[in-house]
């Protein structure tokens, strides 16, 4: 719409890409995504971020790192994940072709494992024995605890007290895997406060500890690094859709909380200008009600958790609590690369309400026998609308690729309550 994006290079750590250039922020090489990104963190963390950036740069250049990660994905994650065309669901999408990228079939049930295995390998390379992570719904916490068990690392997961109650089973899963789960009792007692507490731990224990960040937010190098580790979703899907349909999809849709699954599937298509990229944000009760988590649609630029991006904030710059039926999207910030893609018009971001997401959740379960994560159901609801819009333009032959980022087992209780599926007195 505006200026052409420079997709593949933008946002990657420029100095780190140089063969002998260790990145220091002092050198002015901190990567930005247009005006977004950066490092808005205490000075005490800068050395660790530089160290991580440097080590990641070395790992990228080292074939054994890529080979080890690929081996793990083949033998542990279950990659490549398949794609599934869903014709019965597609009838509710204006009759266009709908193809799902099945990240729900990964070990631990979502795309989160793609990122944590890479970061766990990096932790080993850094010689650190302890990892910390934040988690909201518990998916990233479970994935991190899983990688920590596999790699024999001490693991502490910070989780808002409110979320430990809402997601008690995931707390038990993490503890089964050997992780310590610390309920966070400050602020709103949700994901944003869990990130604050994890950052405080990191400032204190940075010498021994690596922070396995769960999304494409936070200070550099996390947005670029997590993006790179999730990029495999789109790389696989692009090839798979080409093989299935003989052409590229017309639209790629994914849900956006922090935005890691969306960046993961978008990235391989950034240079395919004819492919529309659509991020679906959690609209909660509706953006107009103020009870939502649609950061790009309903937020404003600012600084949170180490990066300049869009966030939900009041007129004083205080973070506003987000609301969504989906704990994994219930976050008042978003990764800086999404803010940039939105600002240059390369990707569009739309809100999907709780009710729309739950309708898509029900429909995919009924029509295709696939119970999606409620997060991913936002992408499905977006696909329904997009498909209907395309059909109205006479484009029934359009191909819609949707990232099914996670499976819905964790959400069955929420869905049971939402749809009143439990018999009276069955509590």
């Amino acid at each position, binding site marked *: 719409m505006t200026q052409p994006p420079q997709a593949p290079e933008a946002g990657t750590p420029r100095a780190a890409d140089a063969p002998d250039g260790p990145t*220091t*922020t*002092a050198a*002015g090489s*901190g990567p930005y995504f247009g005006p977004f990104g*950066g*490092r*808005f*963190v*205490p*000075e*005490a963390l*800068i*050395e*660790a971020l530089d160290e991580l950036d440097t080590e990641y740069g070395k790992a990228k250049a080292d074939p054994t790192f890529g080979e080890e990660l690929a081996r793990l994905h083949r033998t542990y994650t279950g990659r490549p994940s398949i794609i599934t065309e869903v014709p019965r669901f597609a009838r509710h999408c204006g009759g266009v072709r709908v193809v799902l990228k099945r990240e729900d079939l990964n070990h631990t049930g979502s795309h989160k494992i793609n990122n944590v295995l890479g970061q766990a390998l990096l932790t080993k390379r850094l010689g650190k024995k302890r990892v910390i992570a934040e988690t909201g719904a518990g998916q990233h916490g479970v994935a991190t605890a899983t990688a920590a068990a596999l790699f024999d690392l001490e693991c502490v997961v910070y989780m808002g007290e409110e979320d430990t109650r809402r997601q008690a089973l995931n707390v038990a899963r993490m503890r089964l895997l050997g992780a310590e789960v610390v309920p966070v009792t*400050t*602020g709103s007692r949700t994901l*944003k*406060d869990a990130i*604050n507490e994890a*950052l*405080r731990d990191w*400032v*204190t*224990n*940075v*010498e021994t500890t690596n922070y396995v960040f769960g999304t494409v937010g936070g200070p550099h190098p996390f947005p670029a690094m997590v993006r790179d580790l999730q990029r495999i979703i789109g790389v696989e899907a692009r090839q798979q859709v080409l093989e299935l349909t003989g052409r590229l999809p017309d639209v790629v849709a994914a849900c956006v909380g922090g935005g890691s699954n969306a960046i993961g599937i978008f990235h391989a298509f950034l240079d395919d200008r004819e492919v529309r990229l659509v991020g679906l944000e959690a609209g909660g009760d509706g953006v107009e009600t103020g009870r939502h988590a649609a950061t790009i649609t309903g937020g*404003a*630029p*600012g*600084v*949170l*958790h*180490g990066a*300049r991006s869009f*966030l939900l*904030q009041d*007129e*004083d*710059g*205080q*973070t506003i609590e987000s609301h969504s039926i989906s704990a994994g999207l219930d976050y008042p910030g978003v990764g800086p690369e999404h803010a940039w893609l939105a600002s240059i018009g390369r990707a569009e971001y739309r809100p999907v309400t709780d009710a729309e997401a739950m309708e898509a959740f029900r429909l995919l379960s009924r029509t295709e026998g696939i119970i999606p994560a409620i997060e991913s159901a936002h992408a499905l609801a977006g696909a329904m609308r997009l498909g209907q819009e395309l059909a109205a333009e006479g484009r029934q032959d359009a191909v819609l690729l949707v990232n099914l980022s996670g499976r819905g087992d964790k959400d069955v209780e929420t869905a049971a309550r939402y749809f009143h599926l439990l018999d009276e007195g069955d509590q």
Partner: protein
Amino acid sequence: MTSQQVGSRTADTIERLRDQGRAALVGYLPVGFPDVDRSIEAARVMVDAGVDVVELGLPYSDPVMDGAVIQHAVERALAGGVRVRDTLRAAEAVAATGAPVLVMTYWNPVVRYGVDAFARDLAGAGAAGLITPDLIPDEGGDWVAASDEHGLDRVFLVAPSSTPERLELTARSSRGFVYAASTMGVTGTRASVGADAARLVRDTRAAGAERVCVGLGVSTADQAAEVASYADGVIVGSAFVRALADDDTTAGLDALATVVADLASGVRRAERPA
């Protein structure tokens, strides 16, 4: 260059005390705790009891550099409805005591207000400048310009993990003093101030800083005396907030005055190299 062109009230105070043979006592309290008027009164009590430079905390929803004591005080201030403009009002009221007033703020409230507008209004309120715990000089281009424009101090932090290059950058970018974090960690009282602190002060001076104050973990007169023997200032926060939170208002102010006087005596009895 600009550091020379723009004066610094904080620097003047620290230099004057240095000539008197002692370090400055820098005291932190968050605005709005327990409410705005009483936080202003508490800051005045601090000055009367021996604090030389006042650090007023602008309450923020996500204070990642703060430990439990300050987190809880700030949460209470926010729950009480404190606004950014209250910090400007408090700064103006406390500056009337004659002590330099620095506002300690996380960066987003300033971004939201507008960096230049905030600098203008802060200067208008008579404050000396800002302490910015989550803004590194690398990201602070607009703040450097605004603080030059409005004649404000900009206090950046260094940590035991800072490399020599970063110490130099931070020393060069700061005006007033450089804030040396005594240990790796967040605010809060500690049994001992890190052994790293003395080394960090030495290294920061070697990197070009003219004034270095030490914060994080100082809560007793002995610790204050120890830090005052090698640093240009001793920064105390959580110990004062805790004293203020001890009891009802009058008792809290009395407790605060007692703790401040105790730490001020520590600063005054420090043995400093001539």
